[in-house]
């Protein structure tokens, strides 16, 4: 039994997530007291009883229309938010790329931000030191690495952020629609790096609308529709079905 369990990188057990929709969200005490009897919120169920098992080494795409719950599922997996019902078990070091450069400190240099950002992903100083050259090289920032991040162009900013995240070498990598970073050259590089990670037995979960990229990268796709799993299977099959309905 234990062995079966260990093969899973992520296990999603009957997960339901409901958000409160506030008409006018009370954030102050006064509002809470004055409007205590007002009907303040509606439940909005984003995910309904999702059951998933993602095995180690799989590269999985989550596809679906806007509002189908893909990003919410990804956030649940990272433990940024918690399920209303059900349970998510993850196995191994997990890194998420929900937004590039979250947590960059504007006044610090690129190099300092590498340390800070990698530390957020749970790396120690030693581990960061070992990867520092790789990260700087991958970002192609050159001498700008020692300038404050606020002086960067948005492209440079993204490149640095992506370089940090991709070089963290987590067991599980969660990516939310960020494959379009930088110019064509850099995108190709990122793509190549993701392929390399995929081949090195990492578990990758990608939320994306660029079906072409998904087809090349993933061997399994999960189509979410209205908070439920519509179809789960080989990437080509799922995408074909998906395009029939949504194309």
């Amino acid at each position: 039994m234990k062995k079966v369990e260990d093969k899973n990188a992520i296990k999603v057990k009957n997960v339901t997530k409901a958000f409160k929709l506030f008409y006018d969200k009370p954030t102050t005490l006064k509002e809470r007291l004055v409007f205590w009897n007002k009907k303040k919120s509606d439940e909005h169920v984003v995910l309904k009883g999702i059951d998933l098992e993602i095995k180690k080494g799989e590269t999985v795409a989550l596809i679906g229309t806007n509002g189908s719950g893909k990003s919410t599922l990804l956030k649940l997996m990272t433990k940024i938010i918690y399920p209303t019902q059900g349970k998510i078990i993850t196995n191994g070091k997990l890194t998420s790329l929900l937004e590039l450069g979250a947590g960059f400190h504007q006044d610090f240099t690129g190099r300092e931000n590498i340390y800070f950002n990698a530390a957020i992903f749970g790396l120690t100083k030693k581990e960061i030191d070992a990867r520092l050259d790789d990260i700087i090289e991958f970002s192609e920032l050159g001498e700008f690495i020692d300038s404050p991040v606020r002086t960067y162009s948005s492209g440079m900013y993204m490149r640095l952020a992506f370089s940090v995240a991709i070089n963290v070498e987590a067991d599980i990598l969660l990516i939310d629609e960020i494959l379009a970073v930088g110019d064509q050259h850099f995108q190709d590089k990122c793509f190549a790096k993701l392929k390399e990670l995929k081949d090195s037995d990492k578990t990758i979960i990608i939320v994306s609308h660029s079906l072409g990229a998904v087809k090349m990268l993933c061997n399994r796709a999960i189509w979410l529709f209205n908070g439920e799993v519509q179809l789960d299977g080989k990437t080509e099959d799922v995408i074909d079905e998906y395009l029939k309905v949504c194309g």
Partner: protein
Amino acid sequence: MKNFFVELYNYRELLKTNVKKEIRGKYKGSFLGVLWSFVNPLLMTLIYAIVFPFLLRNTTPHYTTYLIIGVLPWNWFTTVISQGTSTFLANAGIIKKVYFPREILPISVVTSGLINFLISCIIIAIFLICSGIGFSQYILFLPIILIAQYIISLAAIFVTSAVNVYIRDAEYIINFLIQMLFYATPILYTLDMFPVRFQKYLLLNPLVTIINGYRDIFYYQTMPNLKLLFTIIGSGIILLYICYKIFKKLEKGFAEEL
């Protein structure tokens, strides 16, 4: 609970960089930089030293030194509470986007405060030398007092920081309470200005014992009240555990509430 220490150990680098950021980042761009964290309490002391002797019959010798030994630890405490309470709002960006053990943030606020205070002990030393009071072996008890203050502050901001995410008023209420607490703590005055029967009520405030502790080892150069200090540490650890549990409960909704 074991989990807590494992996570903290795994994310020790984040804690370290965060403490550094807290100390250095705060004053980045200002001319005096980190020096502000010492100039501020010095100016505060200066004001009290000028005004207070006018208001009260003041028989405390070396009053400025007496003051600074109270003001600096107090400054550590208030900075921790006010910064700690709003720490999750200030870091909303990363809370919503990245997972990391949330308790890192309050812990780094208290820790950076501690480091700041340790550096500002230089100021205390300068005052002790200039006033001719000097040093004694009782300084060795400093770590015990530091631990007591650390535990109490951390317990407090575990709750205030988490509550502030849900009810933004908390920040303002707490700032008021802190001001009240300032006058309930013998920073400007000495405890024996009060009748003995009041003193025991004042001692319910753990900061009284803590501030008195600093005074004992630096200013009066006597044994600090170890019995009271260890009572604070002991009950502080229990309090810390309860506050941490409350924090863990509230923490789950952070990303949605921010």
